């Protein structure tokens, strides 16, 4: 009895620790430190807001708006956690390979995995709502402290649980309904879209929260689309603040939705689990078809006209393959896309210069997202292959990286934005704006990658090294000052043709100048970095004269 209990505990601990498997980022990284950082990061938004709101006491619709913010936050963060751990909802191939030969029944593995998942979700659910639960009584101005706390705890936990289980149920439905191969493909797409959508919601939900009273008064159908509003109604059913019948109706929807999601999750998780367990250990089948004709033709064209050197071809295709196939990088870029989408929504409402500012902001986000993504290693230990080859070709690898950014990021972005620009502006002006944005993006890329001496994804990365203050300053500049000043400049240039020509000449000179600086900085025989230098063991104050 005691043995089976300790076995059960050991398995739960094993599955729980597997949720934090961060070896792939940096072999030197400390998982515990990363987990603590993550928990702190997720708890911070609620902490900051609840402390700010302590200065005021809310009643009526003001209180509903604040409730809406915390409910949405709980849902978005829990959704984010489940989407991030999408592949870990079921045991993976390695788990089965290690555990199947042991005398463990499938039901034991299932129960321990489910329990570990429950503990994992519970931990994040408490973490994200910790500060709001702790300090909520200072925000709600009503009497009966216990009832206030109880209603708040019940709502934020129920809404977070709903979001987490909704994501789990979606995967359960997909795994139950779709054939294995199709599930694998669809699952990748859905996970990426969900990640982008959740990040987008994270930024726009505070705006939604403020609009709720107006939307309810207008009987807008939008209130039925966002489940966060249902749980604001749920809160209202537990502790009325405005006694709005519409809000109470939304509350009833929340109760039903929670019941449905729990039922679907329970009904699909077990069959999905059995199906997953059966398929995951299947031997690989030969795959007769490689890339399609179109893909091969495009590859050949790029190799022939853009990438003359074999090392450029190697690095270019390696970047392409990693970006499209590495889950970590895909989710990372999806997060940036979500942030970009949120900013796009905000800038598009910025009057006549909205579409122009949109393209500038998006190009800034795109290049900075790629700069950050290229720093994260992918299967770091496999980088010996690059180290073993001719390191004299570092310059070619870096050239390939810049070409990839232009061909696969900047050109597609401005191609996608072109219809919008032509819709809003006369064609000559639109053409100029597109050229202006593309030229600025090229210079921005050169500046951002000035000291970058890595083949993307091949260098170790120490997560704690990022200077958050510098990062925030750069992004604030990019999101506000850069797009605003540059869009003003573009509008002025569009009206002054001579100055516009001069601008392109200056941009070309800047592009060449930064390239020259880079060559001077990194030297002609570029040696690539494969190990992040990290912090020195002994840091001196450098006080010598």
């Amino acid at each position, binding site marked *: 009895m005691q043995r089976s209990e300790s076995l059960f505990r050991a398995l739960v601990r094993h599955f729980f620790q597997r949720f934090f498997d961060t070896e792939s980022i940096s072999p030197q990284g400390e998982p515990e430190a990363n987990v603590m950082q993550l928990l702190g990061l997720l708890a911070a938004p609620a902490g900051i807001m609840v402390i700010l709101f302590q200065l005021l006491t809310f009643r009526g619709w003001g209180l509903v708006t604040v409730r809406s913010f915390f409910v949405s936050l709980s849902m978005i963060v829990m959704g984010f956690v489940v989407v991030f751990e999408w592949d870990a909802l079921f045991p993976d191939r390695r788990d089965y390979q290690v555990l199947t030969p042991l005398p463990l029944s499938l039901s034991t593995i299932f129960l321990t995995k489910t329990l570990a998942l429950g503990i994992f979700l519970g931990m994040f659910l408490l973490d994200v709502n910790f500060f709001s639960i702790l300090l909520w009584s200072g925000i709600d101005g009503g009497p009966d402290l216990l009832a206030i706390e109880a209603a708040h705890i019940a709502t934020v936990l129920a809404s977070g649980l709903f979001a987490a289980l909704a994501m789990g149920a979606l995967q359960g439905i997909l795994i139950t309904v779709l054939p294995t191969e199709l599930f694998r493909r669809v699952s990748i797409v859905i996970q990426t879209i969900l990640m982008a959508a959740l990040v987008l919601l994270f930024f726009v939900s505070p705006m939604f929260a403020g609009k709720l009273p107006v939307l309810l008064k207008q009987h807008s159908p939008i209130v039925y689309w966002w489940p966060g509003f249902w749980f604001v109604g749920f809160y209202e059913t537990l502790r009325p603040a405005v006694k709005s019948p519409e809000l109470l109706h939304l509350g009833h929807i929340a109760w039903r939705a929670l019941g449905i999601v729990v039922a679907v999750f329970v009904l699909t998780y077990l069959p999905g689990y059995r199906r997953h367990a059966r398929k995951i250990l299947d031997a690989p089948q030969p*795959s007769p*078809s490689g890339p399609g004709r179109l893909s091969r033709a495009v590859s050949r064209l790029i190799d022939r006209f853009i990438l003359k050197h074999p090392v450029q071809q190697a690095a270019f295709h390696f970047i392409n393959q*990693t970006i499209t196939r590495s889950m970590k990088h895909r989710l990372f870029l999806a997060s940036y896309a979500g942030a970009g989408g949120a900013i796009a929504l905000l800038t598009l409402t910025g009057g006549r210069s909205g579409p122009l500012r949109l393209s500038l902001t998006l190009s800034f986000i795109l290049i900075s997202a790629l700069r950050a993504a290229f720093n994260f290693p992918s*299967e770091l230990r*496999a980088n010996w292959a690059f180290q073993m080859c001719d390191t004299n070709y570092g310059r070619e690898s870096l050239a390939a990286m810049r070409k990839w950014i232009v061909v696969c990021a900047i050109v597609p972005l401005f191609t996608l934005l072109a219809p919008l620009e032509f819709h809003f502006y006369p064609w000559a002006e639109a053409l100029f704006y597109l050229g202006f944005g593309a030229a600025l993006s090229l210079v921005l890329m050169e500046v951002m990658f000035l000291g970058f001496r890595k083949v993307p994804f091949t260098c170790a990365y120490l997560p704690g090294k990022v200077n958050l203050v510098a990062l925030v300053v750069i992004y604030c500049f990019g999101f506000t000052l850069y797009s605003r000043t540059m869009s003003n400049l573009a509008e002025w240039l569009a009206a002054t043709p001579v100055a516009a020509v001069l601008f392109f000449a200056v941009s070309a000179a800047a592009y060449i100048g930064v390239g020259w600086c880079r060559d001077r900085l990194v030297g002609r025989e570029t040696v690539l970095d494969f190990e992040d230098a990290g912090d020195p063991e002994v840091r001196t104050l450098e006080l010598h004269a």
Partner: protein
Amino acid sequence: MLEIKGLTKYYRNTAVVDNVSFTVRPGEVTGYLGPNGSGKSTTVKMITSLLEPSRGCVLLDGRDIREDPVAFKRRLGYVPEEPILYSYLTGLEYLELMGRLRCLPPALVEKKANELLDLFALYSYRHSPISAYSKGMKQRVLISAALLHDPDVLILDEPLSGIDVTSALLFRYLLTELSKQGKMILYISHVLEVVEKVCAQVVIIYRGKIQAADSVERLRDLMNLPSLVEIFAQLAEQRDLEQVARDIVGVMRTTA
């Protein structure tokens, strides 16, 4: 000729490889043997420049490889101890990546990669991701990648790990054929039967120090032992293995 001269590596003041010297001649397979943790892979990592030696040097045709590491890497083919590959690439994509990094013309890379995959019985899996490959399949991809650019020096660290009988037999013939082509081959393995058959000389390392370096025949004569397995056991393993086996069974049967 590849000469290893006085290679030494210290970790926290302990020499894990201590003054190791031997020579790998063209047209010969040199076996490098030793129990786990004896310093074989550390030696190999120093030879391949993946690790900086604390002391000593490696000479290729009389020139220190540190003078021009790129020129050395151009002539080197390497199969590492563990089959660590980019698992999301397909077998063909991995070989294309390696071929291009070796600056081979794209058409030649494609031709060679497909032919090698075919000869190593991986052709039908060439478009499958490496994550779906077995250990032996990964090993065959690594061997193909090491041969792709027709290197002069081959360093093969446990290349038979996980490989099936047919592939192992093929590999034995391949080693013989490569040595006939004048390649310098350093072969690290625990499969002493293969080492005995293909290696012109063997170097035995134990606890970081060379215990013997000579041809198998001379070692047999000198030590008056019938096979490489027994020579190895005498030089590199100083425990009574039969007694150890009995002790293992004893531990296994312990109930309380």
